């Protein structure tokens, strides 16, 4: 089973890279882009019998390693199913 984990800086945390990317897009004429947040994307191939089990394992992985809870939040999608905000 495949879980996709999206890690981004919390909304309250300034993202210097995202800001720089936004400025670059503005330079290219994309003034309609009002903001950019840069993050990380992980694909986990998980040996699990149910999507719920895969999600639980992916959540633990995100909590313990993939995201730093001090500055980052994460979102998990399992297979082609629905997205769910975890925190």
């Amino acid at each position, binding site marked *: 089973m495949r879980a996709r984990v999206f890690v981004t800086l919390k909304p309250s*945390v*300034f*993202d*210097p*890279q995202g800001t*720089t990317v936004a400025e670059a897009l503005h330079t290219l004429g994309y003034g309609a882009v009002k903001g950019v947040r840069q993050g990380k994307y992980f694909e986990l191939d998980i040996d699990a019998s149910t999507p719920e089990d895969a999600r639980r394992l992916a959540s633990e992985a995100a909590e313990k*390693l993939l995201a730093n809870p*001090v*500055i980052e939040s994460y979102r998990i999608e399992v297979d082609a199913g629905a997205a769910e905000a975890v925190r």
Partner: protein
Amino acid sequence: MKFAVVVFPGSNCDHDAYYAVRHVLGQDAVFVWHKDTSLQGADAVILPGGFAHGDYLRTGAIARFSPIMHEVKRFAEAGGPVLGICNGFQVLLEAGLLPGAMLRNRSVRFQCEHVVVKVEHTDTPFTVACRQGQLLRIPIAHGEGNYYAEPDVVEGLEKSRRVIFRYVTAVGAVTPDANPNGSVNNIAGLCSERRNVVGLMPHPERACELAVGSADGLVLLESVVTSVGQGAYAAAR
């Protein structure tokens, strides 16, 4: 006294630290490989600068799984003096030995320059030989030294006098211009609750001889020699 300098794959200031301790300060120093499980009876531990594990995932994030970190944690919890320099500071944050996290520098550039930091408190093993308010001219070299913690955490650090080094101007003023990376409250270094674990982004080990532009960093290493000489941390070994 004996210093242990931990070597991670990707550490690149390990030899600088070893040199400063052994050849400038004249103390004993040993390299400890990250897969080792003993600090070899050292009196103080240095986590050096560099790019441990290639900075994969996040700076310091993988280093906390290195076997030696169990021993570093135990040593720290027993009250032993631990100094994290630059990447070593980032490792201490990821390992949970110090609070907070590092963001990319506000400039989005790797900042490599001499800065001035003020010693805010002298009651740590690495600042005991400093004067309160002493200004140290020490180099920085990092891309992710923009210290961040939740506002209540920062307030707690300030109240408990745990901000040990702050970026300041040449005359000691805390201003946005003196802040090279965007760190909250110009924080350059802090200590643990018990004050024995200290992390800072600047490189004192690279400022131990006038021949390299400044010897201001030596006082941190002299401090821990003084502290250990007073027998304050014998229990940790």
